[in-house]
């Protein structure tokens, strides 16, 4: 028993989908549970922060952290886990690239708090009460973690060894990662544990992708019926496949939906959103500004489309505040 390698799971700003993907291992979870000791997993097992603090530094073989880093508490836990673990894996799009929570970087913290606690249609708050970081009652003080000004990726806060991409990562990739950890033959630090090629390479509709595209319109999923055999780009649908890493085995395409980019870019691309913008726009048909703009109007939310999972890890990281 003491010889089994120790594994931990932790979540930060996330939806819980990554946790589900661990359970999605199905029968294989028995294999994992046999091979390792799970020493920390707040979602599924009763361990407390104090248990982790009591562990020796570096005594956990690997911890998979999912979720973006948004509060001081998440920062603190990430740092604690970093100290206790030999290997830290950023698990899922949010830990890897900021994920959907990092779309909040389009706004300031004040804008978000004001909306959430005052302006949202479902809120009644005439006193404009906001959560306080500290509150004293009967000589006792209770505290809350602070929401930071920026949503961050895990590697913007602590040192990260590997990345398991996806929203969420597929059970197949998780299983492969666990087997790699157990084999003791580690890939180079910083490796994204998924094939380093574009999704188009493993797409079942690859053959129908035309050499030359010429977009006259872009269609969103509710606007047309997609042909379930033909390349989605050829149907005028913004598919992130060309700028997205392979490894999911084209799950969304097989569900007849375009790739939305959750696996992030390949190692040759720094900014996934800029890269797909480049690719899509180059292939717009018109040459005149007015006509180009009319085609672009079909993409009403370019940030939400191209940076859906990666605003925190993009080159600009957030909205720039001019002085």
């Amino acid at each position, binding site marked *: 028993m003491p010889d089994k390698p120790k594994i931990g799971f932790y979540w930060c700003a996330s939806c819980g989908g990554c946790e589900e993907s661990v359970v999605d291992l199905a029968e294989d979870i028995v294999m994992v549970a046999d091979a390792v000791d799970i020493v920390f997993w707040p979602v599924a097992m009763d361990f407390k922060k104090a248990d982790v603090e009591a562990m020796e530094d570096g005594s956990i073989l690997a911890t998979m952290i999912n979720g973006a880093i948004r509060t001081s508490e998440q920062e603190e836990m990430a740092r604690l886990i970093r100290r206790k673990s030999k290997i830290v894996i950023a698990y899922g799009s949010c830990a890897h690239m900021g994920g959907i929570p990092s779309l909040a970087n389009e706004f300031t913290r004040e804008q978000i708090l004001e909306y959430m606690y005052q302006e949202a249609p479902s809120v009644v708050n005439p006193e404009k009460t906001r959560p306080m970081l500290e509150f004293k009652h009967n000589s006792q003080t209770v505290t809350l973690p602070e929401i930071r000004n920026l949503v961050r990726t895990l590697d913007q806060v602590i040192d990260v060894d590997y990345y398991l991409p996806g929203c969420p990562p597929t059970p197949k990739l998780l299983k492969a990662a666990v087997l790699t950890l157990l084999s003791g033959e580690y890939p180079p630090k910083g490796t994204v544990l998924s094939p380093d090629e574009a999704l188009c390479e493993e797409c079942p509709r690859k053959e129908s992708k035309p050499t030359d595209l010429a977009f006259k319109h872009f269609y969103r999923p509710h606007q047309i019926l997609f042909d379930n055999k033909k390349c989605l780009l050829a149907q005028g649908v913004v598919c992130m496949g060309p700028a997205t890493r392979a490894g999911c085995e084209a799950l969304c395409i097989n569900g007849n939906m375009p790739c939305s980019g959750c696996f992030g870019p390949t190692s040759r691309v720094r900014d996934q959103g*800029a890269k797909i913008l480049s690719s899509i726009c180059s292939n717009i048909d018109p*040459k005149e500004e007015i006509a180009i703009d009319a085609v672009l109007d079909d993409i009403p939310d370019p940030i939400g489309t191209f940076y859906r999972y990666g605003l925190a890890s993009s080159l600009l990281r957030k909205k*720039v*505040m001019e002085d």
Partner: protein
Amino acid sequence: MPNPEKKEKKFEPKIVAFFCNWCTYTAADLAGVSRLKYAPNVRVIRIMCSGRVDPQFILQAFASGADGVLIGGCHPGDCHYSEGNYKMLRRFRLLQRVLKVLGIAEERCRLEWISASEGDKVKTVINDMVEKVRNLGPLSIPAKMSDIDEEIKELEKEINREEVPQHA
């Protein structure tokens, strides 16, 4: 904190320019040999075609501290590679929308068609852009990002302080 004395100093914008080898770069050469004077704020990078400008280059320039980015390509129909400038134009139209949402003013990113014979246009475009960006003030993304990242350093220091007695 910015030094109040330093703020007195006139702000000189840094502008990164990507000039096409076949037209705008040659035009900038022409401006030089014609002894036309223009603002020294532009750092020119020669590329083979405006179509080679990956939007990542533009974002990288801003993220590295540029106050403005200027792209110079051949007039429509004149591209050495037939269509490169159109590709740039289409990317530029959407990139401008992205930049707007991310808080970067339109005047900070500019696309101009300047042929090899238009040395004087290089001069007027650069001077005009420098003036406009000067009025906007510094963008200083690196400084802003390092300011905002201070918030995570505080906790790191705090945690390290707490640990000191344990390790001693």
